[in-house]
């Protein structure tokens, strides 16, 4: 049931049509940026920018080459952000997107600490701030449409479909043309698996992908503690009652003597 997207980095030409389509569909404004000597703009995702293209300049056989990396929420299968949200404002839906419900949010920003990809952004400048991130166009998916960025891409860099089929297609591309790709599907195991997958012509670390992301399900890390709480309650209450009983008995015995 869960929808998924495969991003084939060999196909991207860096036109940034996806960046514009995303802004239009999600009614995002812009934030002032500065020239950094690089075409990547903005330099980081922000509350007005859910997706962007990173321009990575590299060398191949002593010649300069560009690689373009589409950057957005990966919509983890077991999202850390949703697991840490105290009020279920962030939620993994059955359709695939990790969605945000502002009416539940308290603004604690634990999602921002938890996300291994630094995706959730905050509206610091507003008196009534939202957490902002890529929605996987959950409204479009619900209406039977495909995400705005996928729709607008002129080179079919992104392939939208059911997770199982998308993963199968990613593996097929790697086996069909082994020289074209490095043999890694980013997102297959990262953070316990993500709904958005990447295949790349060059090693992912050279494109700035975070390779330190654990392959375990991140929510298990905190659940390891929460699941122990009933035992802690039992131990503390039992120890407390027993020590209370002993100290009282000792005192009463002392009095009798």
């Amino acid at each position, binding site marked *: 049931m869960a929808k998924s997207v495969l991003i084939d980095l060999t196909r991207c030409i860096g036109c940034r049509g996806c960046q514009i389509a995303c802004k239009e569909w999600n009614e995002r404004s812009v934030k002032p940026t500065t020239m950094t000597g690089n075409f990547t703009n903005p330099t980081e995702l922000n509350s007005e920018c859910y997706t962007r293209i990173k321009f990575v300049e590299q060398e191949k056989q002593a010649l300069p080459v560009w690689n373009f990396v589409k950057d957005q929420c990966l919509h983890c299968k077991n999202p850390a952000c949703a697991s840490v949200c105290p*009020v279920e404002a962030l939620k993994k839906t059955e359709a695939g997107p990790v969605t945000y419900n502002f009416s*539940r949010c*308290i*603004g604690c920003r634990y999602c921002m600490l938890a996300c291994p990809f630094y995706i959730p*952004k905050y509206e610091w400048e507003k008196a009534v701030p939202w957490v902002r991130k890529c929605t996987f166009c959950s409204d479009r998916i619900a209406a039977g449409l495909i995400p705005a960025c996928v729709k607008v891409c002129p080179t079919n860099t992104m392939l939208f479909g059911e997770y199982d089929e998308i993963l199968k297609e990613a593996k097929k591309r790697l086996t069909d043309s082994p020289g074209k790709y490095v043999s890694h599907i980013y997102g297959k195991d990262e953070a316990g698996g993500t709904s958005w997958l990447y295949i790349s012509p060059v090693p992912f670390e050279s494109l700035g992908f975070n390779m330190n992301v654990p392959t375990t399900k991140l929510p298990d890390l905190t659940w390891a*503690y929460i699941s122990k709480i009933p035992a802690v309650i039992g131990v503390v209450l039992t120890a407390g009652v027993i020590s209370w009983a002993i100290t009282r008995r000792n005192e009463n015995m002392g009095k009798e003597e």
Partner: protein
Amino acid sequence: MKTEHEIKMWTPFTMLMCGLMGIGGLILLVRLFKGLGAVTNLNDRFPWGLWIGIDVLGGVAMAAGGFLIAGAVYILNMKKYRPIVRASILNAFFGYLLAATAITLDIGLPWNIWHPIFMWQIHSIMWVVAIHVVLYTTTLATESSPMFFEKFGMEKAANFIHKIIVPVVLFGVLLSTLHQSSLGAVYLIAVGKLSPLWYNSQFPWLFLISAVMMGLSMVSFETILSEKFFGHKADISILSGLARGVLITGVIYFAAKLWFLISGPGIAAAFNGSMEANMYLLEMVISVVGPVILLSMKSVRENVKSLLFVDVLVISGVLLNRLNVSIFGVYRDQAATGFSYFPTWMEFVVTLAFISFSIVGFKVCVKYLRVFPETETPH
């Protein structure tokens, strides 16, 4: 014990603190109407800053003395500590008020602070923390209520609380054990972000142990200062007893920290000269190594001035630990992104205002309520 009229309310220091509270209040008004960005330097890579590090994590750790002394007196029947039990509970109550108010104003949507009570999400440590703050602040209010009932001549209510005090205290001990440790558990999810000098899977229990050190030192600190400023007499045996508690906990804490360092990033990681390694070493020296060495000497444990010095070491050391975990420990990961964080002067003033509120509140209570009933001289 000085009576109501002997404790001078408007000392220059108190006036300074009230001034800070006034300015802090104005800054918080700006924060409410203009947003967090208008008064803080928080940003997308540093979503939590000084208010979470000091006011919330620190404030809660400082309040640990409440459940420790209440537990020692009411559960373990250690009568020696009875003279300071009310003060410790009151101190904890103010610590929690500080933490609860700070978190309310730190979250983006303060008017939604009640959501976790009705919108349960039991997989979230933040939900666990929120429920604990609510329950334990209520428990502390119950534990300290007899002082207020006495003041207003409500003998029956005071007697009722006295009857149920043992289960209430036990409930408080349970909530504190869980709350202190769950604040550490918050960071379990930050694997790969938080430096391995601090991150490890047993984080929650390290927070609990260091909170015990902090709580006992805080009680000792405030007992010594109350003696000086409010004229109540504290027995040196109480202070040495607390010091022994800090010493034992400190040894356990040091052993645990050392073990996690060796089994985690390795000892060399603490000596590589980087900013985070230096912060780690500084924290270790102030919070545990220094205090344990000093307290192992009997002469230190029996000298009020030396004990005051050690208390200050432990309190600032554990505060530094909370700052390291919440700010310095995640710095390395951001270095390449160009993001950094240093609090604005307004964040500092608000933090000082919150601390002032706790101190002034405590002082008002000592002046008008029977916080140290055992040491009162008969009128």
